[in-house]
Structure formats: structure tokens, C-alpha cells
């Protein structure tokens, strides 16, 4: 059984995407990512030295099965994001970009207007755009319309580990979306990741929960298993949850008497 995820021209066997921030060392980051079997790894452009051939973070991500996904974290406008994406394409030789435009440095919540603007421009310039957004179903459709290759709605604010507090909106997004839906941000435990997959997410992106754990390598494995379990459960169709207990003497049993 092969269950793969296709985004643009790439096929992924793993539905767990990971980040590179907050680890206590680049070596530990590498070990955790390898253990998680993640094939798409996002890295903040502002953290890497694009002019250096031996940047510590990038060196540790040079593995055959790892695809780099540069992100624009830190930019505040569409204009800055487009500039950052061009910089990334030139330096890292990839036209994939995770669009993160959060002018609010406190909660790092994405700006929907600037994100839509930047997506439209970048798609025209040939980028594979993966936009980080609030769990806004209408925005997701608008992004799909302008050519986003997937959408990345948040479960909760970045780094909050609060899980899927946007659950009801994520469900609408998953129901309506024609492009892959990747739940990004807020996933604080493997159970959250499994839940997102059970709901029908195509993939999840996890960073803080792995990086800040006492044992990031083991946590990477735990997330791998949780994502697989959630995906299998989704495919196997979960039994419906009954709202009411089944009465031993049904109200309508008299009809059969």
C-alpha cells in the first residue's frame, strides 16, 4: 500500500513536515529530523547565512531524502516576502517557499491581506507557494484561486502547543479545499497531530513540540507514529461518535409490536 502526498511536482511518503528552530544544537536538530523521517523541512531565511557555503544549519540538512523549505519568517509585508523568496531561490536553488508574513511579533499571527497579495505575485513568478495562514476557510479558497499549491492553516498560535483550537474551521477548510491542507502551528503533542490527521489533514508541520522536548529524537519518532496512526484511522473511516446512549427500550419499539 502506498499512500503518498503530492504537492506540485514532489511526492512525499511522510506526512510529517518539520521545522529547524529552537533546538539546543544543529546536531540534535538533524538527529530528530532524521528520526522523524520527515522529508520536508522548513528553515527561516533569517537564521541562515546565504552567502556562506558552510552554514551550520544548512550543513546539517544535507541529506538525500530531506527537501528544504525556506520560510520568510520576520517579514511584515508582501513586498518584503517577495524579496525574501527571490533571495531564497537564488541562494538555495529552490522555488519552494513557505510564506510567513506576520507583522505582529508577539503572537506571530499571519496577515491575510499581505499573504494573498504575495501568493499571487510569487505564483506568477513560478514559485511553489505554501502560505501560513489563520484557519480562515474563505481565505483558503482565495489562495487556491490565485494558485497556492497548498494551504497551511494554524491549529493555534505558533509555539503555543495548544493543539487544534481552530478545529471547527479546519474541518470546513478540509471539506472545501482542492489543494492539500497542512495543519501548521500549535501542534503540541503527538495526540494533536494524530487528531489533525484523523480529521482529514493531508499533513502536519511540527517544530516546537519536537525541539523543546527533553528528548527530541524520541519525540520525532512519536510524531512520525502519531501522523501515521492518524492517517490510517482517517482512511479506515472512524466509527461515528454517538451523541446519545442507545436506549435498551427504544422509544419506537412499540411500532414493531
Amino acid at each position: 500500500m502506498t499512500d503518498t502526498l503530492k504537492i506540485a511536482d514532489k511526492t512525499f511518503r511522510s506526512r510529517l513536515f518539520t521545522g529547524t528552530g529552537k533546538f539546543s544544537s544543529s546536531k540534535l536538530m538533524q538527529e530528530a529530523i532524521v528520526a522523524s523521517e520527515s522529508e520536508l523541512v522548513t528553515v527561516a531565511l533569517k537564521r541562515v547565512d546565504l552567502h556562506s557555503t558552510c552554514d551550520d544549519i544548512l550543513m546539517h540538512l544535507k541529506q538525500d531524502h530531506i527537501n528544504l523549505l525556506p520560510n520568510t519568517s520576520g517579514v511584515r509585508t508582501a513586498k518584503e516576502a517577495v524579496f525574501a523568496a527571490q533571495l531564497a531561490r537564488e541562494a538555495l536553488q529552490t522555488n519552494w517557499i513557505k510564506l510567513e508574513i506576520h507583522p505582529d511579533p508577539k503572537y506571530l499571527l499571519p496577515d491575510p491581506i499581505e499573504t494573498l497579495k504575495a501568493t499571487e505575485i510569487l505564483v506568477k513568478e513560478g514559485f511553489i507557494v505554501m502560505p501560513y495562514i489563520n484557519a480562515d476557510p474563505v481565505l483558503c479558497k482565495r489562495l487556491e484561486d490565485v494558485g497556492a499549491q497548498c494551504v497551511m492553516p494554524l491549529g493555534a498560535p505558533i509555539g503555543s502547543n495548544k493543539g487544534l483550537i481552530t478545529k471547527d474551521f479546519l474541518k470546513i477548510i478540509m471539506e472545501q479545499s482542492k489543494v492539500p491542507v497542512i495543519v501548521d502551528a500549535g501542534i503540541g503533542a503527538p495526540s494533536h497531530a494524530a487528531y489533525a490527521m484523523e480529521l482529514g489533514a493531508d499533513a502536519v508541520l511540527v517544530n516546537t513540540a519536537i525541539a523543546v522536548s527533553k528528548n527530541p529524537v524520541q519525540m520525532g519518532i512519536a510524531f512520525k507514529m502519531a501522523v501515521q496512526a492518524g492517517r490510517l484511522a482517517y482512511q479506515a473511516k472512524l466509527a461515528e461518535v454517538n451523541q446519545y446512549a442507545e436506549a435498551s427500550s427504544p422509544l419506537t419499539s412499540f411500532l414493531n409490536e
Partner: protein
Amino acid sequence: MSNFKDIFNQYDWDTVKQEIYSFTATDVQQVLLKDEINLADFQVLISPAAKPFIENLAQRSRALTRKRFGNTIQMYVPMYLSNECQNICTYCGFSLTNKIPRKTLTDEEILKEVAYIKQLGYDHILLVTGEANSTVGVAYLKNAIKLIRDHFSNISIEVQPLNQDEYETLIDEGLYAVLVYQETYNRATYKTHHPKGKKSNFDYRLDTPDRLGKAGIHKIGLGALFGLDDWRVDSFYTALHLKYLQQTYWKTKYSISFPRLRPHEGEVQPKVEMTDADLVQLICAYRLLDEDVELSMSTRESETFRNNVINLGITSMSAESKTNPGGYVVDRQSLEQFEISDERGTNKIKAMIQSQGYEVVWKDWDTSYSKK
């Protein structure tokens, strides 16, 4: 509200002080049960009553810091460009009345210092000057930023307060952050310590973060100079300032520094002592108030203290700092602004941070993001 002064004027120093000193252990226990800490709670957490709860504060502070910042410590280094100064600040080595040789770095000298700092590994730099507007004004600063911006990913300044349009000019050249400490929020104490020069204008300084916010700066650094007056009251006002700024200029990031008075060439010794335990209590209280604010620790503090606070909430640190213009290579003997305490080299600090399970972060910005 048009600026912070309107809020500042609603508070009375003595009343705030009286409140802080009247809290009890029960007040502290109640605050510690809460998930969200507001400004009133912060007041309780910096009170003498909260002192016995310091381990509890530290544990919570550490957990919150790890969640938001991960296992990382950001490194930066100061570079003093000039010690010329038209102000009298009673506590400062650069004060006008101190008969010391004055020096302002030339382009060539700046680049020499830069070359030395770069080989130590630094990528975030803080430019520092006194206040001498005719020689070290906006034109000088603009030139300095232009000169160094290809060498550093992140440029901050700690210089005299400027006008909004002047900040805009510097931001366009690639300036990321401005550090401007009120020194003390007690108007009378402020007057005593700043009797002469442009800095004697309390209100112009108080308005500075507002001007920075309006100019669209990426980050503002706040703080009070501990020792001038009661650190608890000054910290309450700093937190009040922080909360106002976060609401008003929501696209800007904030950092807090904790300078304690150090021996120097000036005349003043600390009026109000702040112990190491006091400072730890304050650092933790800030973290509980705000998960996201950067907390910064300079080389003013001792080795032991610095080794330990990176576990408690501090997120950025300098090392091997020289507080005199040309102090790295050009003119090592020129007079320093204050004596640093932790004199360990950058490699030693790096090893110390790593040995505690933290990654040393050198680069977390790109000047191309700031430059217009």
C-alpha cells in the same frame, strides 16, 4: 491615547511604591494560581512579599522561556563609536564634566573594529555613543550604519534620543532596533542625575519610544538604570511602558535590559541596592508577564550570575564587550563608560552556553529585510 505620557501621568510614584510594599504572601499565592499574569499581578510578583517564592517564579519563567524561545541564546556585541558627550549624567564615565580624552571613531577606525568583531563570530551589533549632536549626530550615525551594514545581519543603536524623521532616515539605511532606557521614571530623581544637557529633558526622553513606534522600527529596547531609585517602582513603570507600546505599535518587537549601576568615572554610587536575588526575581516576573519579550543580559553582571540566568528567562547576551570607543583594537586604553564584570572571551561564553544545553545563535535577521 496619543502617547505614553497620558498614561504615565495617571500614576503617582509614591502610591505605586506604597502598593508594591503592602502586598502579602497571600496576594502572591493568588497570583501564582493564575494562568495569565497582568500588570497588577506583575506588581505583586516584584514585591518584597514575592521573594520567598523565587524558586517557583524561576521554574515557571524557565518553562515559558523554553516554550517560546526554545533552547537558544542570541549573541550580540556592543561597539562604542564615541565618548563625546554634552550631557551631565552623574553616574556615567562619559559625563561632560569628566576630564577625559574624547574620541570619535573615523571610518577607517570603525572598519578596523568591525574586522576584529567579525572574526569573533558576531553578526548582531549594537552601536553606542554619547550625546554630541554636532559631531555624532544623525549624519554620523547614518554613515556608520552604511559603512557596516554589509558586515552585520542585524544593527541596533543605543544613542541620544532622535526625532521621528531622523529615525526614519536610519531605518531606511538598515537600522533594526533602538535601545533607549528612561534611566528612572521618577521625575525628581531624573532631574538630580541629569542636571545639564539635552538629556535633562525628561519628557523628550519619555516620548522617544512613541517616536520610534511611529517611525516603524522593528524593535525597541526598554529599561531603567537600577540604583538611581527604587528598582521595583521603576520596573513597574517600565512594564507599564511596555504594555502601552505593545498595544499601540503592535508590529514592533520589544526587549528589556537590566543595567545595574557599575563603578565608573562618575560621582554616584547606587542609592538603592539591588541584590542578585532581586534581579532574578525581576527577570522571572517579566517573563511571567510576557512570554514573548526578549530579556537581555550584558557583561555588567558577574560570571556566576550570567552562567545561571540563561536558565531563568534571559534570551540574549553580549560577551567580551568593550565600553570605550576603539576598545577592541584601535585604542584599547581609552576610557570606558563603565567597568564590565564578566571579562571572559567569546569562545568561553559560547562553550558555557552550549554546556548548559543551549544553541548559540549568531544570526537571526537579514539587513536586506530592514533596508528600504
